[in-house]
């Protein structure tokens, strides 16, 4: 049984007739020690998917379907049970370390908070454990960092603190929402290495949300490509990079500086933008930007198997397969 098993998840804005699905019918799983990526442009619903796992969707949004964590359906749990899981069994790493930390509380207190909340540690014990955590995330001068405020740290150091906070109670599942997007490239590398080491060490599962194909290629074993709130393709990362099936994935890969992936071709942009949830009509959402779109794309394609462990949702797959790889 996988650690996290999401089945037919819908995320909805509003109620009744006027409700709009921003995430539609997505299913995926994350096993212990496994790193799974969700890849997509901003606005495709990947962050909402992450927040729905924690039960922390913004007001006005609701989730339906099934999110099983350790055999328990999170969507049917009460607030109290969810609070006991958050920060304890499931740790969350946020995108923006500059705003994710409380500006008026010391770093030490913020990391100690989940420890005191979930493990029943006393003040002194939690402080000792916090020091230990700060050492583990390789913060320079960890003892002094305990009493420092977030604004006295650099962006990379703050993100390390956010990671330490998420790790404090040794969660079995980590969710990282664009953990390196707000950081300098040189620091990105260090943070990703730290995450890899920690997942390796703790054997926790990691759900990594990113729009960065380079990050996804280096970090994840499996990946879901999302577009406009649906999964358009999923499978082993390596296969998807070397042989993308869905026209969107192919377009995404062509839009990346290829040297990072070992290719050497021209950079291309995808014309147009992701349609807003209110503009989403029936059929394949990518068709307005797809060079292969035809009349059959007016109908939503299902995810169909394409090789071992792989699925993709496109009517034109035979043509894609037949065409010369980009």
């Amino acid at each position, binding site marked *: 049984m996988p650690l996290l098993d999401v089945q037919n998840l819908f995320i909805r804005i509003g109620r009744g007739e006027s409700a709009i699905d921003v995430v539609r019918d997505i299913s995926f799983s994350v096993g212990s020690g496994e790193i799974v990526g969700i890849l997509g442009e901003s606005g495709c619903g990947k962050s909402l998917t992450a927040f729905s796992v924690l039960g*922390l969707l913004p007001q006005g949004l609701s989730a339906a379907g099934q999110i099983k964590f350790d055999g328990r359906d999170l969507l049917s749990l009460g607030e109290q049970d969810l609070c006991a899981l*958050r920060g304890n069994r499931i740790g969350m790493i*946020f995108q923006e370390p500059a705003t994710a*930390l409380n500006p008026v*509380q010391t770093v030490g207190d913020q990391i100690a908070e989940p420890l005191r*909340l*979930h493990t029943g540690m006393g003040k002194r014990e939690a402080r000792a454990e916090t020091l230990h955590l700060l050492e583990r995330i390789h913060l320079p001068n960890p003892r002094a960092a305990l009493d420092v405020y977030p604004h006295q740290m650099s962006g990379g150091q703050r993100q390390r603190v956010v990671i330490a906070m998420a790790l404090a109670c040794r969660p079995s599942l980590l969710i990282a929402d664009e953990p390196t997007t707000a950081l300098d490239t040189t620091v990105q590398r260090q943070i990703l290495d730290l995450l890899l080491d920690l997942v390796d060490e703790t054997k926790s599962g990691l759900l990594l949300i990113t729009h960065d194909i380079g990050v996804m290629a280096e970090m994840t074993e499996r990946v879901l490509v999302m577009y406009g709130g649906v999964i358009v393709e999923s499978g082993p990362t390596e296969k998807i990079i070397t042989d993308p099936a869905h026209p969107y994935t192919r377009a995404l890969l062509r839009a990346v500086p290829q040297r990072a992936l070992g290719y050497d071709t021209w950079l291309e942009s995808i014309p147009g933008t992701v349609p807003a949830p209110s503009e989403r009509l029936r059929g394949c959402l990518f068709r307005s930007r797809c060079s292969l779109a035809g009349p059959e794309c007016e109908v939503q394609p299902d995810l169909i198997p394409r090789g071992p462990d792989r699925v993709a949702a496109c009517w034109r797959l035979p043509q894609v397969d037949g065409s010369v790889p980009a």
Partner: protein
Amino acid sequence: MKLSLLHRLLSWAVTLLAVTAIVFLVLEILPGDPALVLLGPDAQPDTLAALRLQLGLDQPAYIRYGAWLAGMLHGDLGTSYTYGIPVTELIGSRLKVTIPLALLAMSLAIGLALVLGIYAASRHNRPGDYGVMAVTQIGVAIPSFWLGMLLILFFSLTLRWFSAGGFPGWEAGFWPAMRALLLPALALAVAQAAVLARVVRAALLDVLGEDFVRTARAKGLTRAQALRRHALRNALIPVATVIGLQFAHLLAGTIVIENVFSLPGLGRLIFQSINQRDLMVIKNVVVFLAAIVITVNFVVDLFYLAIDPRLRHAS
């Protein structure tokens, strides 16, 4: 930290000096001869001259200003024209009423505002929130003197729980004195609490949308815990600013309320002094009230430093 403290202390002193200059200038420009007021229009010219000499009015303005400041530094504010006793003594005895009244009113206002504001913010866009907003809207609109009269009518004349006015003095004991201050403090507090509750609510809603509150929730804190431990302290910064401003309003409000409840406080003193053209009392009381307002704002500045480490490290 030390530097910013020094900076604020200096600005406190400079502001106070400016206040004395303005008060002195205004009273200097205003028509009316204090000696003439004291002796009446039928006074003989030589009596007037003698009184002017006695009051030091024959000296040039800058010397009188200097003497006033020098006296202030020594704790000598001169003698009241009408009461004939030192102004320090006069102010001292009146402060025993006004300071407890203002503090009681401010505490009531802050307490009420925090309870209402937190309640409304935690029930944002739900009936409880709308209820608080409606009640505070009414609270803002009620003039304090009218509320004072209603309170007297209801609690003093109908229920007979409190006396309708007057002050027994602290000699009568702590509780009887507080009892006399409770209704006037409430009359002063309601409007302030209503404004402040709205500020607390707005500040909290602002902070509750911040990323770090979401982080707190992701750590496993309940909504109420996240509000209490993370949002509240950040929201107190704008709230403290408004409290500082409100304190000045509250002192101004005591002038009216002390008259409604016949309390022998500073507000009533200034009211009477103006009626009697007791310039010696007026200028000192005005400077004194200004000093209190400036000091409160100084304390608010210190509070910022205490609450926000970013300001502590900024200098």
